[in-house]
Structures are given as structure tokens and as C-alpha cells.
């Protein structure tokens, strides 16, 4: 399987990373190289093997339904590049 320029462009779009047109080709070559190396996994017969969900052999702990957090809008927004009246602000979104 080969990872072409168009795929890189698509994946970069999904990942919201701008990639210059001129960089797509070399990036495709580089990623293809890595993916080809990864392909050696196909040598392994994994039929009937359960995919690992967690290395922790334990059950999901559940917490009680208590309000223990929040109430600090200032703390939440203090690192924001743009905020107004305790809101985060981003360029206009059109739905």
C-alpha cells in the first residue's frame, strides 16, 4: 500500500495541519518509507488474538456523583489567546 500525495493532503486536512503544496511530495515519500517499514507486521498471524484494550488488569473505577470542581472561569480562560467576558473567542464560525 502506498501513501501518495493526495492521501497526505487528506490526512493533513483531517489533522488540521497546513502543509505547503511543495512539501506534500517529500512528506509522502518520508511517510511511505515509515509505513513500508511498519508493513512487516503483516508477517504476524494475529487471527483470533484479542486486541489489547489496556495493560492495566483492572476494572474502570467510578467516582460518586458529587460536584467537586469548576467555579473558576478565570482560571479556565487565563491562558486563552483571546477571551471576552469569560468566553473563549474564535473567528466567526458559519454552520
Amino acid at each position, binding site marked *: 500500500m502506498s501513501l501518495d500525495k493526495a492521501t497526505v493532503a487528506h490526512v493533513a486536512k483531517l489533522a488540521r495541519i497546513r502543509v505547503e503544496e511543495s512539501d506534500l511530495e517529500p512528506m509522502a515519500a518520508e511517510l511511505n518509507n515509515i509505513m513500508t517499514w511498519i508493513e512487516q507486521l503483516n508477517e504476524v498471524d494475529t487471527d483470533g488474538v484479542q486486541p489489547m*484494550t*489496556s495493560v492495566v488488569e483492572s476494572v*474502570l473505577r467510578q467516582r460518586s456523583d458529587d460536584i467537586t*470542581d*469548576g*467555579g473558576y472561569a478565570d482560571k479556565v480562560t487565563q491562558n486563552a489567546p483571546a477571551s471576552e467576558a469569560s468566553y473563549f473567542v474564535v473567528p466567526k464560525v458559519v*454552520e
Partner: protein
Amino acid sequence: MNDFASRIIQGATGDWEMVIGLEVHAQVISNAKLFSGAATAFGAEPNSQVSLVDAAMPGMLPVINEKCVEQAVRTGLGLKARINTFSVFDRKNYFYPDLPQGYQISQYLQPVVGEGIITIDLPDGESREIGITRLHLEQDAGKSLHDQDPNSTYIDLNRSGVALMEIVSEPDMRSPEEAGAYLRKLRTILRYLGTCDGNMEEGSMRADVNVSVRRPGEEFGTRCEIKNVNSIRFVQQAIVYEAQRQVDILEEGGSIDQETRLFDANTGVTRSMRSKEEAHDYRYFPDPDLLPLTFTQEWVDSLMDTLPELPDAKKQRFIDDLGLPAYDAGVLVAEKETADFYEQVAEGRDAKIAANWVMGEFFSALNASSGDITQPPVSAGNLGGLIDLITDGTISGRIAKQVFEAMVESGKDAGTIVEEKGLKQVSDTGAIEAQVDEILAANGDKVEEYRGGKDKLFGFFVGQVMKATQGKANPKVVNEILRKKLDG
């Protein structure tokens, strides 16, 4: 006026059938969020109910709220659904400013609840079963406010991370009316269970509506998903519009693009969502910050034991044990609070009389006041007391209506009002007999006419006696005495 009951759209080229499935997002009733300890209450100051986890600060981790799990399982049990004692939380990856993590924690391949059933009641008295595909737990997103500033969108994360149950139906509905009945019934069940308040105005219940059309009996057509519709009426309007739009396209030889659309409540039309035009690829994978969600069947069974009586069972009991007509039973169980109120009124009394009073005078008075049965114009105890006075012959049904009005006005109980206004029914045979004699004597001509065969005049005599006694004479006794005197 739209015809929501119609299952068929008559096109120029023949009939089309609507196929409808609903994905309902129901906000779980809990104090805190699904994966953080921030509060869930509606209407707080912006970003004031946001933890560092909800704001997706670096290094923050989710820990699940046991109450949300319990609510999901209870809802599953209420939908007679399969409960999965092993389920998995996945990340659904996409970028949106009100999705701070860049992914939503949801359940994809292994939801906590599997297949179930909802029985919907249609206005014609028919019932239909609608299949539930699944129910899973997921996080709500924050809120984008587009109208605060001409060039900016404001983001409030108060809702970010609030637990939602996504309840997915099979594409089993065939008319807007059925979709409405499904939503109403689902809302009733959720409210009975106390797992979601069903308040669509505040957004605690929203529906994504999947609509397609087909020739009756043929394969399903391509569907469109109308996102985030927030009232039952809008759902029905959206279906009507969308189905017709699809029929128009197909009849002109076009084809339907599978896409996500928005319903504009102002114009009543659906339109394609611009921001989501590119193909979605959510890249689901199990959230490595969480382990699989597991619990025991014993725990599920213990929840089953604590479930309240649900509307279908209650309705059946009202019919079977209380002898109510199906219609009355259906009306009374539609809201749990109404059913509770009715049961208090009917407790130890004639169920049918109680039903008539609750659905008649009481509902009128309720609608004229707050409309909220938790703040009734007359308490269940007082209404019961009024019915007792009718049953034991203290007052007549007619006087009772008068008493009821006075109860609404004054808040006093029936006995007090009857006492104060001297409305006690007269059952004393002697007194009534004297009154009857007086009336008959004064209306000798009418007596003659009656005896000459004009039976209808009987009612005239009853009326005259009741009038003379200001309605307080026991109508039964009046009847008996009149019969004896006139016919005897």
C-alpha cells in the same frame, strides 16, 4: 396545516413512503458531569461550570461518574433493552471550537445498552412497536454563540462534558405523527425513570432525524440526517419538508446525497450544513485514558428491582384493575406526576369518578392556572374529599362543581365550603316529600298533562323541586318520590 398522520406522499409518478429513524440525545440527570466533577445545572455564567478536564487542559484525565452509568442502565432497562455488562468508550475525533479535546468521548462499537423496544400510542387508539438499536453514553459539547459579535464566535464550555444518552431507533417510523408519538413516549419513559428531564426548550433532549423516502415495499432510499432539532413539532415539520424535498428530487430524476442538514424553524425548511461539507472521518478508537466499563449482572438486577412502574404497565393496571377506559388510562399516565396525582385522588374511591374529575374539572382548572401539576389548583387530598362528599350523598354532582370552583378560588377543602355555604344535600324524605307536594299542587295542569302521557314533563317536576331546594335535594330521593306520587 400539515397532515402529520399521513404515511404516504402522493407524487406525480405515484406514491412514496416515508422512512424515519431518530437519534435522540437525552441529557442525563446527574449533579456532576460524565467525566469531571463540574456541575451540570442549566443557565450558569459562562465557563463557570467548567473543570480543567472539561477545558481540555494539557494532562487532564477523565474519571467516570457512577450515577451516569446507573442512569444509562436504568434507561436501558426501561426500554426493555439488552444491557451490556462490558462496554467500551471510544474517542470520536473532529475539530470544532466547542469540542475542546478535539474528540468526543463516546461509545461506538460496544455501547452500554443494546436492542430494545418502545411501544407508541397513536391517536386512533392503535399501538406500534418501534425498535431501539442502542443506547450509549457520551459527552456533550460546549456552546458556540454566533450572535455576540459580528466577527467572532464566543465559546462557553459549561455544557462541555455533560453526560448524554444517545438513544438510536430503528428506521421503523412511517409518518411524522409516529415520530412525534415516539418522542413523546420516550420522553415519558425518561421522566418516569428520572434519567432525563426531557426539557427540549433547554436542550436537554434533542433529536437528529433520519429521513428517506421509498416506493412502498421497496428497499430503503438514501437518507439525510437533520441535526439537532429541538421540539417535537419541529421534528414533524422537518420530516414533512425533507420527505417532500426528496420526493421532488427523485421525481425529477435526481438522486439524494447522503448528507447532514439543518432545520430552520423560522422558515420551516432544511438546508445542507456548510461547515461540515467535507467528508467526516471520525477515526474512532478506544479511549486509552479509560478502561472498558464493566459491571455485574447482579448490579443490573438490583437496578431492575428499583425501577418505578413505567407508563405501559401503569396504563394496563389502570385498565385491568381500576376499570378505566383505555383512553382515560392513556391520558392519565402520559405524565408521571399526573398519574401520581390521579392515584392519590382515586385511592379508596371510585376510580372512574376520580378519573372523570381529574380529567374534567381539574384539568380545566389546571390549564387555567400554572399548568404545572406539581402546583395543582386543588390538592389531591381535597379533590378526594370532594368526591367523598358526592359518594356519601352529602352533595350532588351539580353542587360539587360549584364547590370545586370555590375550592380553586379559596383553597379551602370541600367540607368547609359545603358547611359555610350550606350546600349539604337534603335526603330527608319527609322534607322532600313536602316540597314535592307543594310543586305538584302548584302545577296541577302539568300533572294532568303528564298523566295524560306527556312523559317528558317528569324532568320539569325534578327541575322544579331542585330549584325550590337550591339544588340541595338528593336527586335520587326526588326521583323516587315523584315517581311514587305521579305514577302511583
